[in-house]
Structure formats: C-alpha cells, structure tokens
C-alpha cells in the first residue's frame, strides 16, 4: 500500500507565484521543476490487496464499529488532525459528525443484514477524512480510508451531506476486499454499480424505507440550489438525475441498447453503471418489500461469494446473481425469476 499523496511544493503558493509577472514565473517554473521527482516517482495509486477472507468462508460475528474521523483542514495530506474517535460526543462540525454517523450506519447495514464484520470482514477500523483540499468537489476511497471534500459551493455542497455517498465510498472497500473488480470498462462499471447499490441500501435501511418508498437516488442533496438536478444518479431511472445548462444531462444508459463506449472515466465506469443499477432496482421493485432483504442478499452473495472474477463483464455478473438467487431461493422461485427478468429488461443476456 502506498503512503499519502501530496504536492512537494505547496500548490497554492505556486499558484500565487504563477499569477505574478515574468520573473516570478521563472521562479514558479523552477520550483515546479524541483517537484518533478514526485511525479516521476509516482507509480500507481494502489495495488489491489488480495481478499482477506477466502471466498465463501463465513466470517466471525460482526463486532462494533471502530470509527475515527480526521480533519484535513483544507490541505491534501491524509489522514489529517484527529477530531472524533469511537464513542465520543458530536464535535459540532457537520462534516465530521455526518461522516462519523455515516460510517456507523454503513457498518450497521453490513453487520445486521449481511453478517459482515466491517469492510474487510475482519473488523477493519473505519477512518474518514473531511475538509480535504480547497473547494474540493469530490469524495473517494483511497484503498484504506474515505476522503470527503467540502464542494466548490457553486455546483457541490459538502459530500458528507449524502448518506448514499458515504455508503457508496465504503462499498468500494467491500468490493476491494471481495471480488476486487478491476476499475475499468464493464468490470469498473460493476464496481461503481456495487457502490451505488449498497450506498442506496444504507440510506434505505437507516430510513426504514421499502423499495417502493425509496428515492433510489445517489447523492441527493449535494448539488447547490443553482443546479438543475436532484442527485448524481438514479438507480430507478438512469439518465434522469440532472439536466443542467452548465453541467449537461445525466449520461447514464438504462439498458445495453444505449451502452456508452468511451475511453474517458476509465471506460465510462460511472456511466454504464446505470445498466446494472437499473437491474437491481427492477429486482427490488418486482419483489417489493425492503430492497436490503432478498435483492440485497442476492447481490451481496454474487459480489462476495468468490465466483466473480476481477474482470467480470455484465453478463458474468448477471449469471452470478442468477446463481445466487437460485442457491438462496431455489430455481423458479419469484426471486430467481425476478433476477432473470431484470437482466432481460436491461438487455444483458444471461
């Protein structure tokens, strides 16, 4: 695993220098050149760790969460200053307290519903850093912990405002420690879809919402009021989450008929995830009740059961869900039928 990435030369000092006249530009350029070693030494974001738990092996009873929240204080150095540890009272910083609560909610879904002991199945401590960078409009999982920006205030507000975003990021950790889906093309879109599915389930479970009651939105509430959009993505209706003059329209397809071939975004991992996302929604809609029950169980088993290769395609994953449904509920069961019909609807051949 790698150490934290940060600029050798403080970027904001360099930027200020760069905005000055010609002599200062040479200074900035010189300073920048001195920082080249950092780029040259960059090799990879992280190497995928092998799953900690052999596939299919049942885990020990889940323990309580071990949460720690750090504050990057607008720098880009991880983890930052410790602000809240497990069991401590709220600190009054919305971002820190939302992150702390979100980690707990996510841990509870995996423990209560799926019997999983934290992200790695072995009680991994849950760490999060808030206030990362300046006007940083993103949240990510760096292979070890979650990181949240405050947003730029023009398009995005702070990313901890959405529980589905927190659940989304932690689900990347679950995928990392289970199927380790490659973050590119269809496998990458499945990786993203797993995060959207389980991110949505965290929100639904906490709010005790049935499939019919849920919004099925990812990132609801993180757009500023200036943006024409409800959220980042919709599992129920991919391609309809936003339509804004500046940002454009939600590009997600809802079936293989409109699959997007692109080299951007690691082969469209956040775009084509709309297809498996909708398949999950269709299963949940068909079966009714709570999506974290049968649909969640089927998807969870497909992800963590050990049969899914890292380079899985949509078809391979669809077959894995059908196999899980058959194993859990029997061939020809409503669950098995719902899974088959869902994939058929989104035009993924089993």
């Amino acid at each position, binding site marked *: 695993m790698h150490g934290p*990435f*940060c*600029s*050798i*030369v403080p*970027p*904001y000092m*360099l*930027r200020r220098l*760069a*905005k000055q*006249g*010609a002599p200062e*530009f*040479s200074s*900035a*350029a010189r300073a*920048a*050149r*001195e*920082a*080249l070693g*950092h*780029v*040259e030494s*960059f*090799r*990879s*974001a*992280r*190497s995928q760790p092998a799953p900690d738990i052999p596939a299919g092996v049942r885990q020990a009873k889940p323990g309580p969460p071990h949460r720690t929240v750090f504050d990057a204080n607008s720098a880009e150095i991880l983890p930052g200053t410790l602000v809240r540890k497990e069991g401590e009272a709220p600190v009054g910083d919305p971002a820190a307290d939302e992150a702390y609560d979100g980690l707990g909610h996510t841990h509870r879904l995996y423990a209560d519903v799926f019997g999983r002991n934290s992200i790695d199945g072995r009680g991994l401590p849950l760490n999060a850093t808030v206030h990362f960078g300046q006007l940083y*409009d*993103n*949240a*990510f*999982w*760096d*292979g070890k912990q979650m990181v949240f920006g405050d947003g730029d205030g023009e*398009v*995005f507000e702070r*990313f901890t405002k959405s529980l589905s*975003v927190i659940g*989304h*990021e932690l689900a*990347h950790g679950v995928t990392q420690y289970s199927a380790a889906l490659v*973050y*590119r093309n269809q496998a990458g879109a499945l*990786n*993203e879809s797993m995060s959207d599915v389980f991110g949505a389930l965290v929100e639904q479970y906490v709010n005790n919402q049935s499939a019919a009651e849920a919004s099925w939105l990812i990132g609801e509430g993180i757009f500023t009021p200036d943006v024409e959009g409800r959220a*980042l993505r919709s599992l129920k209706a991919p391609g309809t989450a936003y339509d804004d003059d500046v*940002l*454009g329209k939600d590009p997600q397809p809802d079936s293989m008929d409109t699959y997007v071939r692109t*080299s*951007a*975004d*690691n*082969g469209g*991992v*956040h*775009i084509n995830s709309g297809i498996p996302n909708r398949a999950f929604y269709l299963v949940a809609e068909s079966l009714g009740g709570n999506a974290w029950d049968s649909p969640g169980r089927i998807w969870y088993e497909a992800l963590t059961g050990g049969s899914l290769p890292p380079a899985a395609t949509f078809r391979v994953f669809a077959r894995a869900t059908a196999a899980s449904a058959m194993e859990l509920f029997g061939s020809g069961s409503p669950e098995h039928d719902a899974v088959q019909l869902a994939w058929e609807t989104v035009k993924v051949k089993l």
Partner: protein
Amino acid sequence: MKISVERTGGIAAIPRVWTVEARSETAINQWQPIVEACPWDSVPRTPRAAAEKFAGQQPDRFIYAIRAGQHRAALPEQAVTGPWRVLVDSTREAAEASRAEGRQDGASAG
C-alpha cells in the same frame, strides 16, 4: 497558444473543461514557462494510456486530460503535482475568472 484541462471521473463523473487562450505576446510569455515546466514526454498522452500506466486506479478519483499547444498529457489526480498542479490550477483559475468577467460585462472568455 490554447490550453485546456478536461477533468473526468470523480464520484459525480460530471466532466468539466477549463480553457484559456494566450493570444498576446505578454500572455504567451506568462503561460510559456508554466507549460514548459511540465514533463510532457514522460507521461501518457491519452486517458487510456494513463489507465494502463497508473494501474490500480483509486475509485472515484479525477482524471485529467491536459492540452497546451501541441502537447498532450493524461494523468490521474494523484499525479497532478508540482508543475502539473500549477498548470491545472492556473488554467482553471484563469478560465473561471474569464467566465466571471464575461458574465459581468458580456465580454467573451479566452
């Protein structure tokens, strides 16, 4: 000299493009050192090549495609440090400032 920075990826995966055009001699003289400080020949030119070089992408990180004149580069955000960071941040600031000025007095950006 036209300089553009396209940012894709991130959890939102909403592409953003920032563009500046240095037309005057003064502007070119200001941008040239920032552009030339970047090691263009030692980094991938396309997002696809960047994905291959920087294997093991961190989920939801940004990916930058940078163009300046005839130069091309593609980098994950973790590699946008040093002179790349200066170029990306300067381009973004200049493009946003130009856009804001355009909104204020109706002038065109660039």
